[in-house]
């Protein structure tokens, strides 16, 4: 089976979708001729023409607002916000328009759009190229929020998102674009070509939204993670030698609560890991759900490891990033509690 980077997998998902359905259009800043600053749309304009893949003005509200109008017309726009940090001007259009159009019009108009955006840090991007705003989307009724962790899932989830009849926020952990990253920033980068989840089938396939994946089965403790933190958790588990079960959530909303609950009821312990800031982060929602659904099975308090509640710093990137040492400490503490 061919191996692809996450960038190639995402590009392939759009290519496959555009080839199958001429209602799929792709646009965003630098997305057309150049193929995007991360090259996720490279070659799509040459293959499908300027009507299907084109450059947009630097105006995120305009990109999402026009995509909503296109979706109301009957197209299926898949737009790129260059960095998740740039999505705030579009937040009004996403939360009050895209998210509610089906509901407020009672299905008279719908909004099948996908809004892709690179998320997370680990690339020395500073405070405006490193944010993880997923909780700002999961808090909004009417959106779906997806965070893939590998090329295979990225392609299947993106095709599923494009085919979904409702608006989907598709957060791409940019530190994973070229290889899995476990937080050991001082070690050589492993490319996706050396990782089994870099195997990406040709053609059409989907990974369903709302289904988590168990990356490691274990009996001692459950780790809930998504995106880059899946690999950080794996490293922490290997380094501590704890028999943990690692769940890669893949979709935050709708959430695969059944998989989470079954695992925590089995292990009796739970550590939640995300790169976004701690307070009111998605981990708070996960922690509450675990408590509500698994209280009588818990042997220890649910622990959260997250980014500190500061803006994402530049020079102190690795002090901020919740790496394997911090995750490992939380695992040990939760095991001893």
């Amino acid at each position, binding site marked *: 089976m061919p191996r692809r980077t996450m960038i190639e997998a995402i590009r392939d998902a759009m290519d496959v979708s555009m080839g199958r359905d001429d209602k799929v*259009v792709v646009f965003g800043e630098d997305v057309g001729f150049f193929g995007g600053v991360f090259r996720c749309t490279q070659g799509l304009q040459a293959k499908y023409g300027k009507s299907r893949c084109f450059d947009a003005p630097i105006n995120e509200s305009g990109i999402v607002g026009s995509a909503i109008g296109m979706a109301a*017309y009957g*197209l299926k726009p898949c737009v790129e916000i260059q960095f998740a940090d740039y999505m705030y001007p579009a937040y009004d259009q996403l939360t009050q328009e895209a998210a509610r159009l089906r509901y407020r019009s009672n299905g008279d108009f719908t909004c099948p759009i996908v809004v892709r955006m690179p998320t997370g840090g680990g690339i020395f991007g500073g405070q405006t190229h490193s944010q993880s705003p997923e909780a700002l989307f999961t808090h909004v009724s009417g959106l779906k929020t997806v965070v893939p962790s590998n090329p295979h899932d990225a392609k299947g989830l993106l095709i599923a998102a494009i085919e979904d009849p409702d608006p989907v926020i598709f957060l791409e952990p940019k530190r994973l674009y070229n290889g899995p990253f476990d937080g050991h920033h001082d070690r050589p980068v492993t490319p996706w070509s050396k990782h089994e989840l870099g195997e990406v089938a040709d053609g059409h396939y989907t990974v369903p939204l709302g289904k988590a994946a168990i990356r490691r089965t274990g009996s001692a403790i459950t780790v809930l993670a998504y995106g880059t933190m899946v690999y950080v958790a794996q490293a922490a588990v290997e380094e501590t030698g704890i028999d943990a079960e690692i769940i890669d959530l893949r979709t935050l909303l709708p959430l695969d609560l059944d998989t989470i609950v079954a695992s925590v009821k089995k292990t009796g312990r739970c550590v939640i890991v995300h790169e976004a800031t701690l307070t009111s982060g998605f981990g708070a929602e996960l922690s509450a759900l675990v408590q509500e659904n698994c209280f009588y099975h818990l042997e220890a308090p649910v622990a959260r490891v997250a980014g500190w509640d500061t803006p994402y710093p530049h020079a102190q990137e690795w002090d901020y990033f919740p790496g394997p040492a911090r995750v490992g400490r939380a695992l040990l503490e939760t095991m001893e509690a």
Partner: protein
Amino acid sequence: MADAGMLRFHVPEPEVRPGGTPDFSNVTVPKAGSVPRPEIDVDPRTIRDLAFSIIRVLNRNGEAVGPWAGLLSDDELLAGLRHMMTLRTFDARMQMAQRQGKTSFYMQHLGEEAVSCAFRKALSPGDMNFPTYRQAGLLIADGYPMVTMMNQIYSNEADPLKGRQLPIMYSSKEHGFFSISGNLATQYIQAVGWAMASAISNDSRIAAGWIGDGSTAESDFHSALVFASTYKAPVVLNVVNNQWAISTFQGIARGGSGTFAARGLGFGIPSLRVDGNDYLAVHAVAKWAAERARSNLGPTLVEYVTYRAGAHSSSDDPSAYRPKTESDAWPLGDPIVRLKNHLIRLGVWSDERHAQAEAEILDTVIAAQKEAESHGTLHAGGKPSTRDMFEGLYAEMPPHLRRQRQQAGV
């Protein structure tokens, strides 16, 4: 020599406040028929003056004059009059229903009826409007059932929107009327997107965006003009300048620019100002703009100069911020009176027939109201179910909502 003293902060003020004498001497009203009608493929750079004038067709004697006249038959004009009268009567009844507690909120069109009623007749079937909350004339003039509108206003058991939306936030894809948001300006860029999609699809349908004078200050107005200009989108960008954004006079949004239409000039978009209280002028300019859009000539910006004679909404009291008699002093008159006088002048209408039509329309509106009220009003009779609150957010209800619906016991 320039004043280089202490800096002074500037906040614009309207000419007159409550207690003062209304003064519109700053509104220059060109003679009807005096503004030329360019070809639709005109070079926008040669018609920049149209952004600073006012295109008018009906003169003070009730005659239709000049190059923008002559597009509508007597029957079409009579229908237009009936639409405007219907909208005004509908508004009066629904405003009263709100005061009677049959709904929570209402917004009327008093004085602005020509804008949406005439514009609708310049579009073709399949075209899509992205309206604000003050364009119900688009529905009335397209034959959308008044009972359905009232069911929505009452949030009753027959409300097509299942009680989810504020009164008057209608939606009808079938009638080319995009779901009203309630947020301001968001729909303007969506209209451009819809138009881009139509062009991408090599369709023949066009879009129309709507915005008020106050909301042109929103960044989505800028977004819409950038996208419309860049992609030459087949869209008509309408600005309804009714002078007042709730209590804020139009000078706060307009700033130092001469007119709202002039905002389009920097984008190379042909930008026209039209007498918004002149049914014939509104229709003629809308037709011109729609033809441009349909001929791959791109967007047109149209500013309708009108006056909000009523309150902003049922929650507003204009006497607190403008003279009570200001609307009487408005120099462009009343759209219904002006079209009525024109039809009398044409010999196809009379005061008697007008009074008779008013009575007929009132009967029709009351009959519709009775039917709507048989399905309930906001606090009495049939209403949408609690279950409806959970339905229809997603195409397929996700598990967490299903759990919450069970918790709610429905």
